[in-house]
C-alpha cells in the first residue's frame, strides 16, 4: 500500500469519526479516555498532512535553489536574495495579510491566547513565502515556516472536527511535531519541540497524539525521501578530555547564541524604521545578503552544505576564516530575518553552531601541546549545533535530541548535553526570554497552560460579577437608605444616576453608619453627596490580573465594574478568590 493510500484511508476514518465503533471502543476504556481515543485518528491525519507539507517544502526549495544556481553565479546573483526576500515579504504581508517575522511566536500565542485557533490562510502563507526567500539565497531555515504552516494545518483539522480549544491546541502541536519530524526525519525532535516550545504542557492527553503525529510524519517522509539523516558522519569517539573542553565550547556557544539573537533584533529594529518597509527593508537588507554572498558564498541560503562540510571535517578554512564565516552567517541571518522575510533560525543555528564548533576545536588544538590530539573536529561541530539551538531557542532538549537524530548517532550524547545546558545558562544571562517568547512575554501573552497567570487572564471580570447587589440612586436620602440597609446584608452599595443605569459612585455603609442613626441629618443628606465618586472602576472586559492590580493599587475590598459608563456589577476580593480557586481546580486538577 502506498503512503498516499494510507493517508486517504486515515482521512476517511477521520470523516466517520463520530461513528459508533469508536464510541463503543472508547466506552470500554472508560468515559474519561473517550476523547483521548477520538484524538488518535485526528493526530495521525494531522501528522500525515504536516509531513506531506514538510516534504514538499524541503524538496521544492532544494529544486529551486539548484535551478537558480546559474543565476546566482551570474551578474544578477548579487540581487537574487533581495528579489526572493521582497517576494517572500510581499506574499506574507500583502497576499496573505499576515504579520512579519518567523511566525513561531504567533504559533505559541495561538496556544496561549486563542484556544489553538490559527487562520486557515496560515497553512500557505509562510510555506510559499519561505520557499521564495530561502531558495533565492536568503539566510534562513524552513523549520519555523513549517512549524507555522503545519501548526495551522493541525488547527484547521481540529476546527473541521469541532474539537474543544484544549484539544485543538494539542492538534496544533501535532502539526508542529509532524512538520519538524517530517522536515528533519527526526520524530523525537518534533515531539520535544512541540512540547518544550509550543505546548509547554506534559500530560498524556498531549503526549500521545503528538507522538502519533511525529511517527506518521516521519514514516511518510522516509517513504518519500528515504531514511537518511540530514547529516552524515563517520563514527566519533570522545574522551574525558574532550568532555572537559566541551565546557568551553558551551560557554562560547552561549555568547554566540546571544549575539545571534541580538543581531536579529537589531536588524528588526532597523527595518521597522525604514519607510515602506514591506519592499524597502527586504530589498535593502537583501542586497546586503547578496554582497555577503559574493564575499562568502557559504553564508547564504539554508546552509546545510556548510554544516555537512563542518561535520565531515571538510571546512576548508583556518581558525580565523572559520570565525569570519560564523560571523558572516550571523549577519546574513540577521539581515534576512530582520527584514521580515519568512524563515526560521533553526537552520542558521545549526550552521553557525557547526562552524563555531570546528573553530573552537581548531583553536583548542592549536594551544594544546603536540601529541595530545582532540577528537575529530566534526564531533565539536555537532556539539556546537546543540549549543546554538539550546542557546537561541532556550530549548535544551530540542537542541540535544535534534543533533542526536539528524546525525543518527548516540555516541556524543554526553558532550551534546553538556554544551546545550551550558550554552543555555550563558545565553540566559543576556536575555530572559528566547526570540520565540520575548515579544509575547513583553505583551503579557506568554501564558502557559495551568499556570497562575494563565488562570488569572482566562477569567474575565464579567464572569465573576456579584449580580445580587442593591443599587441605590444618588438622589435618595440617607433616611430612605436606612430602609434599604434593613433588608440588605451588604456593606457596599453601588450608586446610580437618576437614569438608573449610569454608574455614579459607591456608598460604604461604614462611612455613613453614624449619620444613619441621626434621623434629622439622615433626612437632609443625599447619597450623592456622601458617596465615594472617585472610586477606581474595573472595566467589564478586563481580566482578573488587571482587576487584582487595581485592588492592589487602591487597597479596596470591593470595586464597581463598569461597561463604559453603565454599571455592570460589583467585584469583591473574596468572590474573586472563590472564582480563582474553582478555575484552578478545573484547569490544573490534582
Amino acid at each position: 500500500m502506498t503512503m498516499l493510500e494510507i493517508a486517504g484511508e486515515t482521512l476517511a476514518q477521520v470523516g466517520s469519526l463520530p461513528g459508533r465503533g469508536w464510541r463503543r471502543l472508547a466506552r470500554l476504556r472508560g468515559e474519561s479516555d473517550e476523547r483521548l481515543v477520538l484524538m488518535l485518528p485526528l493526530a495521525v491525519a494531522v501528522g500525515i498532512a504536516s509531513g506531506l507539507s514538510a516534504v514538499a517544502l524541503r524538496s521544492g526549495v532544494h529544486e529551486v535553489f539548484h535551478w537558480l544556481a546559474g543565476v546566482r553565479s551570474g551578474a544578477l546573483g548579487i540581487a537574487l536574495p533581495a528579489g526572493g526576500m521582497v517576494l517572500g515579504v510581499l506574499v506574507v504581508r500583502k497576499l496573505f495579510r499576515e504579520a512579519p517575522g518567523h511566525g513561531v511566536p504567533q504559533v505559541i500565542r495561538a496556544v496561549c491566547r486563542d484556544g489553538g485557533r490559527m487562520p486557515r490562510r496560515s497553512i500557505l502563507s509562510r510555506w510559499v513565502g519561505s520557499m521564495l526567500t530561502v531558495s533565492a539565497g536568503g539566510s534562513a531555515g524552513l523549520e519555523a515556516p513549517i512549524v507555522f504552516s503545519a501548526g495551522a494545518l493541525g488547527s484547521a483539522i481540529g476546527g473541521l472536527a469541532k474539537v474543544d480549544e484544549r484539544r485543538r491546541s494539542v492538534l496544533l502541536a501535532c502539526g508542529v511535531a509532524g512538520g519538524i519530524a517530517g522536515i528533519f526525519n527526526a520524530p523525537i525532535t518534533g515531539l520535544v519541540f512541540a512540547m518544550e516550545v509550543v505546548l509547554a504542557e506534559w500530560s498524556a492527553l498531549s503526549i500521545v497524539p503528538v507522538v502519533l503525529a511525529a511517527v506518521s510524519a516521519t514514516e511518510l517522509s522516509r517513504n518519500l525521501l528515504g531514511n537518511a539523516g540530514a547529516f552524515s558522519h563517520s563514527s566519533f569517539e570522545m574522551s574525558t578530555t574532550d568532555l572537559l573542553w566541551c565546557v568551553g565550547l558551551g560557554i562560547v556557544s552561549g555568547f554566540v547564541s546571544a549575539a545571534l539573537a541580538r543581531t536579529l533584533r537589531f536588524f528588526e529594529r532597523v527595518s521597522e524604521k525604514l519607510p515602506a518597509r514591506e519592499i524597502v527593508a527586504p530589498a535593502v537588507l537583501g542586497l546586503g545578503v547578496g554582497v555577503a554572498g559574493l564575499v562568502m558564498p557559504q553564508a547564504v541560503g539554508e546552509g546545510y552544505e556548510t554544516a555537512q562540510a563542518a561535520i565531515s571535517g571538510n571546512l576548508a578554512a583556518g581558525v580565523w576564516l572559520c570565525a569570519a564565516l560564523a560571523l558572516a552567517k550571523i549577519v546574513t541571518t540577521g539581515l534576512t530575518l530582520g527584514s521580515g522575510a519568512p524563515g526560521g533560525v533553526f537552520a542558521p543555528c545549526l550552521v553557525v553552531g557547526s562552524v563555531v564548533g570546528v573553530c573552537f576545536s581548531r583553536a583548542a588544538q592549536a594551544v594544546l601541546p603536540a601529541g595530545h590530539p582532540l577528537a575529530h573536529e566534526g564531533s565539536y561541530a555537532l556539539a556546537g549545533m546543540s549549543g546554538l539551538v539550546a542557546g537561541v531557542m532556550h530549548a535544551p532538549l530540542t537542541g540535544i535530541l535534534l543533533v542526536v537524530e539528524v546525525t543518527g548517532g548516540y555516541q556524543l550524547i554526553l558532550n551534546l548535553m553538556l554544551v546545550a545546558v551550558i550554552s543555555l545558562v550563558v545565553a540566559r544571562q543576556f536575555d530572559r526570554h528566547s526570540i520565540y517568547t520575548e515579544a509575547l512575554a513583553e505583551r503579557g501573552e506568554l501564558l502557559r497552560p495551568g499556570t497562575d497567570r494563565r488562570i488569572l487572564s482566562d477569567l474575565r471580570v464579567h464572569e465573576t460579577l456579584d449580580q445580587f447587589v442593591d443599587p441605590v440612586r444618588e438622589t435618595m436620602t440617607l433616611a430612605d437608605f436606612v430602609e434599604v440597609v434593613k433588608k440588605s446584608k451588604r456593606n457596599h452599595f453601588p450608586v446610580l444616576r437618576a437614569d438608573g443605569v449610569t454608574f455614579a459612585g459607591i456608598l460604604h455603609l461604614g462611612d455613613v453608619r453614624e449619620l444613619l442613626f441621626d434621623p434629622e441629618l439622615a433626612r437632609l443628606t443625599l447619597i450623592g453627596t456622601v458617596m465615594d465618586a472617585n472610586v477606581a472602576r474595573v472595566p467589564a472586559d478586563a481580566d482578573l490580573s488587571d482587576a487584582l492590580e487595581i485592588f492592589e493599587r487602591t487597597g479596596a475590598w470591593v470595586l464597581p465594574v463598569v461597561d463604559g459608563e453603565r454599571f455592570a456589577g460589583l467585584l469583591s476580593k473574596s468572590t474573586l478568590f472563590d472564582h480563582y480557586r474553582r478555575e484552578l481546580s478545573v484547569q490544573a486538577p490534582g
Partner: protein
Amino acid sequence: MELSEAARLLHVSEATLQRWVRQGLMPASGDADDPFRVDELRRWADERGLPFGESSARTPQRAERMLSSAVGRGAVLRGVTAANASEVVEHLVRAVPDLEADERALVLERVLDRERLASTALGHGVALPHPRAPVAGLLADPVVVVAHLRRPVDWAALDGVPVHTALLLLSPSAPVHLQLLSRVSHALKQPGVDAWLAAGTTQAEFVERVRAIEEASGK
C-alpha cells in the same frame, strides 16, 4: 536589612518571608541578622510585579476641632434680611472668602440645585444648606459660613419651625463632608445650643463655643 523590615516593605508577614527564603524563592544572604539588601529586594519585587515600599493606602485622619476651624475659615453673618431660603443661600455664598467670581457662581448653583431636590432644614430653626456634591478642587479644607436671620424664614422643615440660623457647609470631598456633618450634629445636640444660636453669635463666640464642645468630646 532585618527580616521584619523586609516583611514590612513587601507587605507580607515575617512567616511568609521566612518560607520564601526557605523554599529558595527569594535572594537572601546567609547572615541571619542582616539577610536582605534593599536594592536587591526592590529589584526582586519589581521583577515579580509585587508592591514594594511604604504603604500608600490612605489612613483616615481625624482632624482636630474640625467644625470650629471650618467656621474660623468662613464667616458668621448677623442680622441677615431675607425673604426666603434662596435669598439666605445667596447671602451665605457671597460671604465665602477667597473664591473667584465663576467659582462663587458654581457653588451657588450647586447649593440651590440641592435645595430644589429637598429641603436642607434640620429642624429646631436650623438649616444646613450644602452643594449636591462636594466641590472638588475649590477648597483644601472645609469652610462653614453661618447666617443669623433678622426674621426667621420658612425652609419647608419637617417640624414646621421657621429657620433662624443657616450653616453653609462646603467640603473638599465626601469623606470630609461626612466628618463635618457628624461634628455639626454633635454640636447642635449639646444642651442650650439651640437657644444660643437663636440669640445670635459672632464669629469669635461661635468658634470659641464649638471648640469647647469639640475639645470636651475629644474630637
